[in-house]
Each structure stands twice: as structure tokens, then as C-alpha cells.
């Protein structure tokens, strides 16, 4: 994966698959401590302790159609290559939390990338799912709650194409405002 935002989308797709109705995303860029953490928590169906033990094995999946599940193992490899860890906590019937940490200033750390696109692709999946997003860069904070937007919209579904396009701009702006000046989240050579 070229961007951490793509890993994030992958985690969010897992939450959808687990039937979650509420998902929280927390990104913390703590530059003074050379740390970047990314956390996704959902209230989906969770998994058994046996599954949890093996969840980062690429040859383990909850799907029945195929025997591979690469998502978490890829993120684990990325986190570990960047001097960090991947931790998964889960309680069956309650939900799952996936937390990745890495060194902020690591050669191999992928850029955060296009977080806004990731979030709207996730929001497009359902008009009932609630997303809480919190992003901290040093002392600056950006939060977003899809419920607040849904209330403003009354009866228009959140996954209406025009609403999603608006959301993409809104989220891009929100993330940009807390980002460090000169910090490049985009991949060089791609627009």
C-alpha cells in the first residue's frame, strides 16, 4: 500500500464486514516523540480468542470463499518495518480495535495520504453507519462526526453523491488545517 490512508480504508472495510454501526478513527501525529499512531475501533461482531491469535496470519480469514486475508498482515508488516507495532483487541459480540504505531520520522513510513477520500469511500457504503474521526497533529485537533452532518441534512442520505463530494472537500480542508506547513501527504508525481 502506498499510503497509510489505504491501510485505513482496508481496516474500515473490515469493520463494515463485521457489521459495525459505529466506527471511531483516531490518528495521532506526535512529532516531538517521533510517533505516529492509527487506531480504528468498531462495535462489530468481534472475534473469538482463537481467531484473534491468528488474525495477522495471511492465510487466515473469516471469509469462506477464499483462504487468504492479507489486510492486517500487510499493515503489520508496514508498522514493524517502521519501528512500530500492530495490536488487535477484540471481544466477541462487542467489537474490535486495531492499533498501529510507527516512528514518525522513519524512512520507510508511507505518507498518510488522501484521508478524505478514504473516509468518503467508507461513508458511501451505508447511510446509517456512524463515523467518529479524531486527528491530532502535535497540539492541533480536527474532529468529525458523521452524525452531526446527518442531522444537518435531515432526510438527504449521507451517501448521496453530491453530499459525498462536499464531504471530501470539507474533510480535505479540515485535515489540511491541522497539518504541518510543508508536510507532504501526497505521493510525489501523483496529483
Amino acid at each position, binding site marked *: *500500500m502506498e499510503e497509510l*490512508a*489505504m491501510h485505513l*480504508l*482496508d481496516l474500515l*472495510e473490515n469493520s463494515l*464486514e463485521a457489521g459495525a454501526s459505529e466506527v471511531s478513527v483516531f490518528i495521532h501525529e506526535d512529532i516531538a516523540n517521533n510517533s505516529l499512531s492509527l487506531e480504528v475501533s468498531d462495535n462489530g461482531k468481534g472475534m473469538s480468542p482463537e481467531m484473534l491469535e491468528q488474525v495477522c496470519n495471511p492465510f487466515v480469514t473469516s*471469509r469462506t*470463499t*477464499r483462504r487468504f*486475508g*492479507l*489486510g492486517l498482515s*500487510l499493515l503489520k508488516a508496514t508498522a514493524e518495518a517502521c519501528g512500530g507495532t500492530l495490536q488487535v483487541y477484540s471481544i466477541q459480540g462487542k467489537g474490535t480495535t486495531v492499533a498501529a504505531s510507527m516512528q514518525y520520522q522513519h524512512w520507510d513510513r508511507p505518507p498518510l495520504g*488522501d484521508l478524505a*477520500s*478514504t473516509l*468518503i*469511500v467508507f461513508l*458511501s*457504503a451505508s447511510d446509517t453507519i456512524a463515523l467518529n474521526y479524531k486527528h491530532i497533529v502535535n497540539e492541533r485537533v480536527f474532529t468529525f462526526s458523521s452524525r452531526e452532518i446527518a442531522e444537518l441534512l435531515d432526510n438527504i442520505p449521507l*451517501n*448521496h*453523491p*453530491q453530499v*459525498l*463530494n462536499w464531504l*471530501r472537500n470539507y474533510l480535505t480542508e479540515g485535515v489540511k488545517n491541522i497539518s504541518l506547513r510543508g508536510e507532504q501527504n501526497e505521493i510525489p508525481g501523483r496529483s
Partner: protein
Amino acid sequence: MKSLEDLENFKKEVLEKIKVRESGEKIKVVIGMGTCGIAAGAREVMTAVLDELGKRNLNEVLVSQTGCIGMCGQEPLVDVIIPGKEKVTYGKVDAPKAKQIVAQHIANGIPINDWLVNKLE
């Protein structure tokens, strides 16, 4: 069309059409958003589709996503489902292709055969 029976049939036909419209028989675009799809650029494809639908004011089109369907080598995959027609699947789609699919297939109903994974007869 002159008998009362014809009129009855005509009525049925119209009602059927209305029902189809109301039951939300919309054009559907489904994008593969499994790990393989994401890594291949499905997210950009999806934002391109939304962007183009927005520009053309095609607000009745349903955009949704699915997991890996086992054709990882052809990702990003995009299904276009037009009610009453066979489902078609585009492979190796990127953002410019996605925009053209919206313009030509979704807006005007003409599939782009060259990009299809399942060739139409």
C-alpha cells in the same frame, strides 16, 4: 390497441414501470474494495465516479462497494448494473476510465466493450 383487454394490459405495463421506479430500481455501480482493490487504486476510481456523477447531476445512481471476488489481477473492478440489462464488469479501471464509463455507459447506456472483463455478445 383498441380492445378493453388491451387497455388493461397497457395499465398493467404502466403500473409495473412505476413500481420499478419506486422500488428503487436504480442504476448501480459496484466497486471492488477488498485489500486487492484498494492496493490497485479502487479508492481513486470511486472518487472519480462520484465526482463525475456529481458534475452530471446523476443523483439517482447508487454507488456501492464489495469485497474481493477473486479476480485480484483485474482490479480495480467496476460493475455497472442497469435494471433490465445484464450486469457488466470492467477491469483494470483507473480514474480517467471511470469518468468515461460514467459518461458513456451510465449517462448514455453504451457499454465500453474494450474494457469489459465479461465480453458482451
